[in-house]
């Protein structure tokens, strides 16, 4: 058999093509390794008993049930206080106006009720955040430990936060707006949270370290934007350094430049964006009362 008549070695051609593609892809920075297949179910751990909420729970209803208990307790407590106790409490907590003296007992009662309800809600939220921060990190199996993590660094958090700018999940992306909201009526926090939960999971954070965090209340935009209030905001939370839950959220852009704990994220909305709501209860005497208070409910979900 002469050189010309040698049959073409297909195996060697295929091997060459494969090696060439590997070289090219490596040179371009693209990993030729097998990519984990995407499955939207994989990025959230849904049956976490720490939150006490079942999958599919309505957070509005849950908040109403909890608020019913909180407000009734406060109303009955304050109604049992005499005028002097009310005055001392209001003075101690700086609830009196500058005139101080002579404040009507009824006005004081309403002011103290509002204060106590708001304080109770803040305490509830902060206790929940503390409880979640104190949970041990999930244990990785030997297989997981090779290419998964159970928490991420601040640097990794910020890189993930910025990655949304290159996705269709940003409010400013024209294609998304044109299809779903040409009039500009919606905020897409739920979409961004969905993106972030997926993004963190695809990058190798185990799903037990990824959660959604909801704020349920009546929020208003900052500044003089002439729109009404909105009822909830949602972001993705991930376990960060020292096991602290950190926020993945590009609302207002502030969380793409500085890693923020969930506690700080909640505190910001609580302080600057929440507005009072009316809560009606029946007090111990059977009389209906209305308490006006800010009650931004925080939920890990």
């Amino acid at each position, binding site marked *: 058999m002469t050189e010309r008549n040698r049959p073409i070695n297909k195996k060697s051609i295929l091997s060459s093509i494969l090696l060439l593609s590997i070289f090219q892809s*490596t040179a371009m920075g*693209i*990993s*030729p*390794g*097998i*990519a*984990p297949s*995407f*499955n*939207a*179910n*994989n990025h*959230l751990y*849904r049956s976490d008993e720490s939150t006490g909420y079942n*999958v*599919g*729970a*309505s*957070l*509005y209803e849950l908040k*109403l049930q909890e*608020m*019913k208990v909180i407000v009734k307790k406060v109303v009955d407590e304050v109604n049992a206080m005499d005028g002097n106790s009310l005055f001392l409490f209001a003075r101690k907590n700086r609830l009196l106006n500058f005139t101080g003296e002579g404040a009507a007992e009824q006005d004081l009662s309403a002011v103290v009720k509002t204060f106590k309800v708001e304080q109770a809600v803040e305490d509830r939220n902060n206790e929940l955040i503390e409880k979640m921060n104190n949970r041990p990190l999930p244990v990785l199996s030997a297989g997981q430990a*090779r*290419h*998964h*993590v159970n928490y*991420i660094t601040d640097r*990794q958090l910020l*890189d993930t936060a910025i*990655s949304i700018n290159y*996705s*269709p*999940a940003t409010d400013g992306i024209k294609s*998304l707006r044109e*299809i*779903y909201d040409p009039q500009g009526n919606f905020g*897409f926090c*739920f*979409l961004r*949270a*969905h*993106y972030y939960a*997926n*993004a963190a999971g*695809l*990058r*190798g*954070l185990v799903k037990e370290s990824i959660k*959604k965090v909801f704020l*349920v209340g*009546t929020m208003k935009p900052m500044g003089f934007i002439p729109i009404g209030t909105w*009822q*909830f905001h*949602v972001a993705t939370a991930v376990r960060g350094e020292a096991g602290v839950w950190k926020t993945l959220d590009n609302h207002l852009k502030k969380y793409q430049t500085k890693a923020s704990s969930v506690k700080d994220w909640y505190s910001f909305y609580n302080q600057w964006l929440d507005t009072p709501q*009316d809560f*009606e*209860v029946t007090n111990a005497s059977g009389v209906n009362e209305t308490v006006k208070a800010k009650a931004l409910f925080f939920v890990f*979900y």
Partner: protein
Amino acid sequence: MKQSKQKLYFLFFTDPAKIGASSAAYNQEGFYGNDSDRDGKLEGAEIFYNSIFKDVDAYMKDSKIGFCDSDRYRPLPITEKYAVQA
């Protein structure tokens, strides 16, 4: 207790064990938790939200991040690329 009239679209997922690999799962009313009136089917605004999530998922599917990719939080060394099963 006074109740807000605003609808609230929650993100919750059905039991993962009940979702198969078929893409038809994405159309089930429970997959993204958009069945806010819990009538067992998607309609109106629920379809709207479901479609948005599906679009983002479609983007995520195209954004393949390999086990050796530097975007991973713990990327595998490039030499191990063939040792990992998807």
